[in-house]
């Protein structure tokens, strides 16, 4: 019998190669400009849809590609290596929007709210965070009050990635506030709905090709059939969604780190100091060795979480470990990439400073590093 096997399947190799060449041809040449101009890469996103990358894990019958979680992680790594702003647009539509609609939606809901999104014709987003409640979702203020055949939503959500461009928002709101997190429900709200307005786009440190904004709900009326899952099931939907999302963000952090590492390696071979390439100096070699080692460690943690997800076993702690390690690693590695580039690492002409800025968010969204440590230690102490 084969031993522990780290080989990719034929399909996984194809995904990797496809995404790698797409990143090299369509993303890397543009990433710098998109970052500077805070430009949403509408065409690249459309092409991701055509390539089947906007619904990687959604079955073909619902417009997606029907691939496994390992393939999704590989795709996220490769696309992130090309442009981290683009990859988070993809990640939100895949993990945070399509996956929960697939898992909790009725067939009728899937027809309207999944098929065109998984196919890349429409864009989804996920609205959990509020101005005064981030990690602590049970403190949310947004409410959804039942009225006849409708719900009326009131409140606001912020830092909503894809918010400025999305066609539909997956919104979490309190339907029974005294019950705390058990009083949260999930809703699918088209952004054309009256009473939903968007604030201006956030001016961000990194991942600037993606947009985020605040969403305001005021007397926003939606039919009851737009509720996803049961009343009170929203927190469960949000948490299980974030488990899968964390694999994607971990893979994003990994892809960003690889971009920094690969550019630093190439630069170290070219750049000369004291008459020889700086790659011949131990100090530079040791940085590169540490970077490559941590990159490999992160990838193994990510693949481990993804293989568990594919087997259908619980993977919350493994996803949290993958995200914690990969995101912290990404900042260290991209920082060393700047160091290897010296002054060129600090100016915008090279990609090094962008990778470092792009890496920073991965320690924050879809659960901060501190939240990951809570998830990991709670699982550990329960074992």
């Amino acid at each position, binding site marked *: 019998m084969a031993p522990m096997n780290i080989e990719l399947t034929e399909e996984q190799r194809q995904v990797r190669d496809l995404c790698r060449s797409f990143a090299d041809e369509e993303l890397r040449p543009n990433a710098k400009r998109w970052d500077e101009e805070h430009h949403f890469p509408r065409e690249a996103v459309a092409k991701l849809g055509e390539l089947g990358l906007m619904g990687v894990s959604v079955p073909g019958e619902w417009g997606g590609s029907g691939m496994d979680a390992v393939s999704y992680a590989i795709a996220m790594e490769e696309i992130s290596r090309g442009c981290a702003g683009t990859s988070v647009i993809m990640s939100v539509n895949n993990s945070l929007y399509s996956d929960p609609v697939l898992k909790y939606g009725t067939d009728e809901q899937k027809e309207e709210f999944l098929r065109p999104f998984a196919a890349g014709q429409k864009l989804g987003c996920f609205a959990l965070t509020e101005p005064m409640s981030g990690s602590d979702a049970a403190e949310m203020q947004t409410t959804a009050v039942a009225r006849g055949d409708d719900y009326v939503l009131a409140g606001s959500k912020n830092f909503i990635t894809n918010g400025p461009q999305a066609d539909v928002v997956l919104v979490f709101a309190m339907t029974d506030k005294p019950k705390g997190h058990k009083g949260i429900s999930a809703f699918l709200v088209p952004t054309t709905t009256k009473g939903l307005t968007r604030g201006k786009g956030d001016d961000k440190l990194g991942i600037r090709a993606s947009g985020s904004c605040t969403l305001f709900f005021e007397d926003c009326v939606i039919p009851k059939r737009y509720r996803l899952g049961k009343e009170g099931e929203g927190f469960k939907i949000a948490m299980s969604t974030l488990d899968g999302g964390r694999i994607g963000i971990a893979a994003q952090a990994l892809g960003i780190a690889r971009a920094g590492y690969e550019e630093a390696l190439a630069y170290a071979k070219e750049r000369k100091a004291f008459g020889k390439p700086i790659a011949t100096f131990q100090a530079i070699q040791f940085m*590169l060795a540490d970077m490559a080692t941590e990159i490999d*460690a992160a990838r193994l943690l990510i693949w481990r979480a993804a293989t568990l997800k594919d087997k259908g076993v619980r993977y919350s702690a493994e996803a949290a470990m993958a995200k914690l390690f990969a995101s912290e690693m990404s900042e260290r590695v991209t920082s060393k990439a700047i160091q290897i580039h010296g002054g060129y690492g600090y100016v915008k002409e090279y990609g090094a400073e962008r990778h470092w800025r792009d890496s920073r968010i991965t320690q924050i969204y879809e659960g901060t590093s501190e939240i990951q440590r809570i998830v990991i230690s709670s699982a550990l102490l329960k074992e």
Partner: protein
Amino acid sequence: MELEPTEAQARIASLARTAAREVLAPAADEGDRTGRFPAEAIRELGRRGLLALKVPRELGGAAAGPVGYALAIMELAQADAAVAVTVAVTNMVGEIIARYGTPAQRERCCPRLASGAWLAGSFALSEPQAGSDSGAMASRADRRGECWVLRGEKAWITSGDHAGVFVVWARTEAGARTKGITAFLVEAGTPGLRVGRREKKTGIRASSTVSLTFDELELPGSAVLGEVHGGFRVAMSALDGGRSGIAAQATGTIAAALAEGTAVARAWEGSAPEAMRFALADTRTDLCAARLLTLRAAALEEAERAFTREASMAKLFASEAAQRAVDVAVRIEGWRGRLAGGSTAARLFRDAKVQTIYEGTSEIQRLVIARDLLR
């Protein structure tokens, strides 16, 4: 892709876990205190088939393969890193004799190493003035008729005072650096082999470390292991596998440190402090990463593919992560108001240190990795 062990691999791990719990764990703290060589534990591991894990069955070994081996070493090391390193070195000696030895050498040495009839095998490469740089070794072997005469010194030789057989590397061609080195098999008691006093060590104190002196030691031509002048390759091929072994040992140390800390956190009245829980979360994450890197290197070895870079990455990461893990364990000891002096955490703290040093320091691992990256 499959990142979990197969059933056969899990069975070896489970055998090792049971042995670790029943035989090693109860004696580990005392072994650290007294520094007594764990002869009884070694014999018991031999009876349970856990001494020559990578040696073929027909030579008395367990034929566990590199992944099964790594899993077993993790389990043994979690209970007692000193016994684990003794087993790892014996296993490495058995493995290279099985691979490079003549039928006579194999049949003489491997079954004795596997059963515990010989308590250990020793790997005699390092010298007082040649550690990481084996090409600089000064021990020499000169032909005298059909025989070889060995002169020189070796240092930091694990289990040297209990070994039944030594693999000794010596220069057989002056000035040829790594191309003029030959490996020899030297049995204990051979005239001219002098075993020095045991070193007093910071950690892994129950394992024994000695120096060796070769004083006109005469060997028959049949003592050559592998080819004349081909010794460097023998050493390096063993070290790649050896590095996975030390990575596995360090992974076991991380697991032990995590278990110590977790026990304190679980027994904490009320909820354990967040800083403690977070330190344990980081240790748990490091443990998973170290384990995966180690098993990846072992899986590549098992598939007979190149794994030099991966073994070095595993050893570098796991041994450095072990330093962090034992630091957490000792700090948590302090948290409950105890001096860590004679505790298990203190033993782990001292045992972990050598993992960044032997079988290639962390600096050597980084050089190996970088050389591969820049190729």
